[in-house]
């Protein structure tokens, strides 16, 4: 080998600008282009509006919410009314949110965990108690959300939206109308269905399917539900919480799904239906809380009071298609939402809906059973 060859080692070619075609400038231009092209897929980051000044709060609110979970005019309306600028970020799992919070204040003033995680966060001392005097609109809440088991008296949380966990499916593709959890075992949906990648939701479904209490922690019950899930796993295409696009495009024809998600799919694929299984289903509510160490708690309270205004709450529900906990908002909710028994369930269906009970240490029994299902 010649010296010339020796000199070009390993990745040195990246900086080898000696060849005439690659003037430094053009190289840099190309790099810049590639960089820009790469960022197109990443989406835009948030602008970090932290203001650490003491005294009265800066006109800033850092809001951390689920994806696709707010109306287009909710934030602009708040900013217009109060002059408070809102930085809006998204997450897609309670686990991520919990982990982030546990590492210390993540810089957010408002978060929206699901009811069972509200319980965990209260136990872990991660939430700031609310000053209900600053939220007079709390009186607009439906009574069952003012004194719910997960947070009696709204000490830590104001409900955002509520919904149910049922089945989304395409009756034409399935070949029939279905009304209960055993539908996922139908031969016609084999390899074209999915269930949620959430331990409690999956076990709730399985416990219903084998005729048990969805909140059971009895070991024999859990074992039977685990067996059911292992056999169901062989039948489904995926265990996923990311079912919206496939349900829309036909990649999945049946999925264990959250109500509002399916209604959003319906807007683009009219043949998709949602059903609350007749043997029963989980209901849940996402509730807005102020994490410990929030820098703008007063602004967060102002926002909570704002979202409870009848028209603001109604606009939110009309957009995201989930149920509103805001009774005063109902007159302003679109008839398609208000008169649909699936979106606003009547009393007889409501009575069959169950919240996920906080299980404490017993939750680990389900976590272990879930690992066995996933690794079977």
């Amino acid at each position, binding site marked *: 080998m010649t010296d010339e060859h020796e000199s070009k080692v390993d990745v040195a070619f990246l900086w080898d600008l000696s*060849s005439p075609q690659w003037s430094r400038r053009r190289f840099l231009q190309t790099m810049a282009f590639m960089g820009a092209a790469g960022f197109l897929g990443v989406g835009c980051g948030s602008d970090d509006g932290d203001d650490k000044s003491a005294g009265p709060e800066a006109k800033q609110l850092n809001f951390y919410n689920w994806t696709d979970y707010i109306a287009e005019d909710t934030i602009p309306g708040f900013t217009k009314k109060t002059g408070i600028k809102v930085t809006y970020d998204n997450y897609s799992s309670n686990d991520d949110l919990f982990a982030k919070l546990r590492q210390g204040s993540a810089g957010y003033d408002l978060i929206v965990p699901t009811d069972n995680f509200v319980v965990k966060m209260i136990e872990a001392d991660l939430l700031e108690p609310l000053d209900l005097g600053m939220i007079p609109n709390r009186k607009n809440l439906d009574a069952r959300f003012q004194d719910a088991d997960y947070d009696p008296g709204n000490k830590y949380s104001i409900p955002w939206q509520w919904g149910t966990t049922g089945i989304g499916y395409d009756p034409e593709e399935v070949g029939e109308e279905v009304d209960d959890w055993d539908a996922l075992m139908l031969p016609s949906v084999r390899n074209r269905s999915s269930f949620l990648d959430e331990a409690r939701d999956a076990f709730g479904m399985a416990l219903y399917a084998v005729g048990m209490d969805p909140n059971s922690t009895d070991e024999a019950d859990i074992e039977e539900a685990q067996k059911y899930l292992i056999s169901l796993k062989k039948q489904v295409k995926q265990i996923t919480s990311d079912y919206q696009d496939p349900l829309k*495009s036909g990649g999945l024809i049946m999925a264990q799904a959250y109500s509002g998600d399916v209604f959003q799919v319906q807007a683009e694929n009219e043949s998709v239906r949602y059903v609350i299984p007749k043997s029963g289903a989980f209901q849940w509510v996402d509730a807005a809380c102020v994490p410990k160490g929030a820098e703008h708690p007063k602004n967060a309270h102002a926002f909570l009071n704002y979202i409870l205004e009848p028209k603001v709450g109604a606009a939110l529900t009309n957009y995201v298609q989930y149920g509103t906990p805001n009774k005063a908002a109902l007159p302003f909710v679109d008839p398609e939402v208000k008169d649909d028994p699936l979106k606003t369930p009547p009393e007889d269906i409501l009575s069959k809906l169950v919240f996920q009970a906080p299980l404490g240490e017993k939750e680990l029994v389900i976590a272990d059973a879930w*690992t066995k299902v996933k690794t079977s």
Partner: protein
Amino acid sequence: MTRRRKLRDGAKAHGLLAPTTAWLVAFLLIPLVIIIWYSVGTRGIIDPVRHPGGKLNWSNYGDALNPSFLPIFLRTVAYAALTTVGCLAIGFPLAYAIARFGGRWKNLLLGLVILPFWTSYLVRMYAWRFILDDNGLANTVLGAVGLGSEHRFTNTHWAVVVGLVYGFLPFMVLPLYASLERMDFRLIEAAYDLGSERMSTFLRVTLRTSLPGVVAGVLLVFIPALGDFVTPQLLGGSRTQTFGSTIQDQFGQGQNWPLGSAMAVLLMSFILIGVFIYAWRVGEDAL
């Protein structure tokens, strides 16, 4: 005099190494110690890892070695091995062609190989999903040319391997190219002149010369492929769980950080031992 000089040189060397040392301590040693510390902890609901009374809980390693994880582990090794073979099969001819025939386009061609890196891995895997889906691009194109549009690509083992090969190809091409670029191609002519066959020329000249690149490429592809959990999640189905996704699950829905940490430590040890054996058998001088 000499002794003092030696001391001074020693101190100087340490001083020069300080940034590297600091970096290794901060980003390698400390995280490693934390993972090992977690792996001997006890799980909890509120605190994911506890060490009640400072007691070390070694049972997590027993749980991690549970035979029920073996099929998943073997599947993961199979994915990583197929990925490595696939990357080598595509990467070698590619790197060879660029190194030998690229001429003045060499940098551009290599730039094109690296180009996908400027996009997030997640986005690229979603793109594959778009291509391979039941109603995706692949089925549309195959249907249009009369080969049927009902193929099932996603949620199969092959979809996962295709995604991994695509994702890790640059890791194979770059070291291969670096080796082949330095190769003196006149050696091939010389081999032919001396009566060598095509195959033996390839094996004894081309491959032999580029062995350092092959060794580096195999390691750079195999190791990350072994730990990958994103690809099976996006392209795989309910039967493509890997060891990496099992570890990830322990930090999420499985709620067992100590077990996840023990599994991670075991996987790391397995890789380390494997690399030592590999380096010793295949490439002691190649590395």
